[in-house]
C-alpha cells in the first residue's frame, strides 16, 4: 500500500463542494475508484477526507463496512452499485402511477432513475436554497438543468406551485444530512405542504444511516437498502421537530418478497436474512 500524504485544505474544499453539487454517493464512488487505482489504505486516505469533508458520509459508512464488516475494498463499489440498482428499480415501481414527480436534492441514484424510466413520466427539481453565498445544491448541474424528461426546475419560492404540479415527491437522502443544513427552514414547509398535496413522499437512501431528521452520520454497516415512504410520518415528523433533534425515526418500506428472495445476492442482506 502506498503512503497517503497530508491533503491540502483547498483540495478538501473542492471535494466537499463536489459532494454538495453532485451528491455524496457520486463523489464518494470516485474516491473509492481512486483508492483502488492508487493502492492506498482506506483508513489512511478516507479518515482525513472524512474529517475535512463532512458531506462525504458514504466513505464513513464504507470504512465501517471494511473495518467491522470485513468487506474488502474491492467489493464495496460493486455492492453499492448493485444495491443502488435494486433500490432504483424498486423506486420506479413505487412511482408507477405518478406521471409528474418532484425531486428535491440529487445524487447518483436519481440519475439512474432517469435512465430506467420508460419515458412517460416527467421529473422536475425543486431547487433548495443554499446557505448565504452558497449556490443551491446541484445548481448548474446537468441533472437539474433539464433534459428530455426533466422539466425546468422550481425554485423554493415556487414551492406551492411545485407541489400543485407534482403527484409524487422524491427526496434524495443527502438533503437530510446534518451537513447540508436543509432542516426546518425548508424541510418543514416542504413536508407540511407535501402531506396534503402529493400522493407519495419517498426518500432514497442507499446507505444505512441514523435517520433522525437533521442527523445523517453513518452508524453501522447493513447490507440492505430501501426507499423510505414518508407518507405516514410527515405530521409527526413536523410537529415533533425541536432543538434536541430527536425527531422521528421513519419507517422502512417493506421489501418486496422477490427482491428478498432472489436479487440481493450473496454479499447483501445479512440484516434481511
Amino acid at each position, binding site marked *: 500500500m502506498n503512503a497517503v500524504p497530508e491533503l491540502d485544505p483547498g*483540495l478538501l*474544499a*473542492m471535494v466537499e463542494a463536489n459532494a454538495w453539487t453532485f451528491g455524496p454517493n457520486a463523489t464518494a464512488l470516485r474516491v473509492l475508484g481512486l483508492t483502488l487505482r492508487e493502492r492506498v489504505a482506506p483508513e489512511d486516505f478516507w479518515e482525513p477526507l472524512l474529517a475535512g469533508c463532512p458531506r462525504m458520509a458514504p466513505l464513513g459508512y464504507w470504512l465501517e463496512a471494511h473495518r467491522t464488516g470485513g468487506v474488502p475494498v474491492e467489493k464495496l463499489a460493486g455492492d453499492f452499485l448493485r444495491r443502488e440498482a435494486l433500490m432504483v428499480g424498486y423506486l420506479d415501481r413505487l412511482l408507477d402511477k405518478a406521471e409528474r414527480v418532484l425531486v428535491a436534492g440529487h445524487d447518483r441514484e436519481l440519475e439512474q432513475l432517469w435512465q430506467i424510466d420508460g419515458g412517460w413520466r416527467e421529473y422536475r427539481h425543486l431547487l433548495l436554497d443554499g446557505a448565504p453565498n452558497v449556490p443551491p445544491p446541484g445548481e448548474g448541474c446537468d441533472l437539474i438543468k433539464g433534459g428530455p424528461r426533466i422539466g425546468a426546475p422550481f425554485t423554493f419560492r415556487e414551492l406551492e406551485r411545485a407541489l400543485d404540479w407534482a403527484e409524487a415527491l422524491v427526496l434524495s437522502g443527502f438533503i437530510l444530512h446534518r451537513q447540508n443544513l436543509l432542516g426546518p427552514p425548508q424541510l418543514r414547509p416542504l413536508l407540511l405542504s407535501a402531506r396534503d398535496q402529493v400522493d407519495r413522499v419517498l426518500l432514497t437512501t442507499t446507505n444505512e444511516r441514523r435517520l433522525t431528521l437533521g442527523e445523517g452520520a453513518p452508524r453501522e454497516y447493513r447490507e440492505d437498502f430501501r426507499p423510505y415512504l414518508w407518507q405516514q410520518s410527515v405530521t409527526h415528523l413536523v410537529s415533533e421537530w425541536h432543538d434536541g433533534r430527536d425527531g422521528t425515526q421513519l419507517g422502512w418500506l417493506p421489501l418486496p418478497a422477490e427482491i428478498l428472495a432472489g436479487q440481493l445476492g450473496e454479499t447483501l442482506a445479512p440484516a434481511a436474512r
Partner: protein
Amino acid sequence: METALVLIVVMLATLAIAWLPARKEAVALVAVAVLLSVGHLHGFFPADKAFASISLPVLLILLSIGIFATVFAESGAFERACRFIAIAARGRQRVLVPGFLLLTYLLSSLLPNLTCLYVLLPVMLGSLRAVGMGDQALKQTLVALVIASNLGGASTMIGDFPNILISRSQGIPFMDFIAWMMPACVLLLGVLYLLIWRGNGGRREAPPVALGLLTEMLRQQSRHLRVDLRLFLPACGTFLLLLAGLIFTGWNPFPPELVCLGAACLCIWLLPEPEKWATKVDVASALFIACLFLFAGGIQATGVLNRLAGFVIELCAGDPRLLSAALIVLAAGLTAGFSAGPTTAVLIPIAETLKDQLPGHLEWWALSLGVLAGSSTTLLSATAGPIAANLLKRQTGLELSYGDFLRLGLRSGVWFTLGAIAYVWARLRFG
C-alpha cells in the same frame, strides 16, 4: 490656468478611478460634469466640440464584443476549457501554470479580459489551491494571469480598449495588429513565464494521490457541468463571422464597427430568449469609455499635448528609434500611474503628431506596447488588477496588496518596456 485646471481634474479623476474601480463610472461622470462646465464657461471646450470627441465606432465595437463575452461566459465554455487543461495536466503545476497563462492569453486576445478573468479565475484558483500551491506562489500566479490577460488584450485589434481606440482612430486593419502586436506579445508571454518560474523558485509538486483526487473531482465537474450548446453554437458561429469580417475588412464594404454590430445582433437573434440578451448590453462600460474620450478631448483642447509632442520630437532630434523608445517609456510610465484607458485616450493625439516622424504605423505599435508594459506594473494600472484581488479574497481569504502585485508587476513592467523597445527597433531594422 485652463490647462492646469483640466489636468488637475483629469489627474484626480484617474487616480480616484484607479483606487475605486467599483465606482469608476460614477467618478468619471462627476469629473466629466466638472470638465464640461469649466470648458464651456471658459470657451476652450464647448459642449458641441466636447461631444464630437466621443468615438461612436469604438463604443459600438466594445458593446458588440461585450455581448459575445457574456454569452460565451454563460455557456460554460470558458470553465470547460479551464477544466480540460487542469485534467490534461493531471494537476501538475509545471503544466498547469503555463496552460492557464496560455488559455487566459488566448481568450483575452479575442474577448474583453475582465469577462475572461471573472469566469476563469475561480476555476483556476481552485485548481491551483487544490494542488497545494502556497499563498505567495498563488498570489504571484494570479498577478501573472492578470498580466497574461493584458498581453492577450494587446495582441489583437479587438482584445482591449487601447487597441480598439487606436484601430478606429487610425483605421488600422485587424491583420496588421496580428502581424505587429501578436509576435511581441507572445515573446513577452514567454518572458512572463520565466519571471514567475524564477520568482517561485521552481515548484514543489503535490503527491500523486492528491493530484489524482484533484483530477477525479475535475472530471466529475466536467461530466455534469457541460457547455450549453444552445448558447455556445450561435455565439461561436456569429463570432467566427465577425472575425472573418474583420480579417477581410478590405474586401467587404463595411467598416469594423458595423461588422461587429451586425454579428452581435445576429448572435442575439439566434439565441434562446433574445429579449433577455438584448438587455445584457454593457451600457456602464460604454458610458465610462465615453467619459475617457471627454477627458482626452478636454486635455487636447488646452493645447498642452501638442507642446509635449513638440518637446519630445525636439529632444529625440527626429530619430525614429529614440522617438519610438520615448513614446514607449512615456506610455508605460503614465499608464503605471493613471491606468490604461485614460492614458491611451490622452496619448493618441501625441502619437498622431509623431506620424510623420515614424515609418508605417510605428507610433501606434509603440503606444500600444508602452500601455501594455505600464498596465502590467501595478495593481491599479489596469482594472483587471483590483478585480482579480477581490476574486482571490473571496475564494481563498488571501489579500493581494499593492506590494504583492508590484513584486512581479515591476519586473514585468521593466522587462516589457525593454522588450518592447528591442522589438520595435528590431522591426525597424529588419522590417
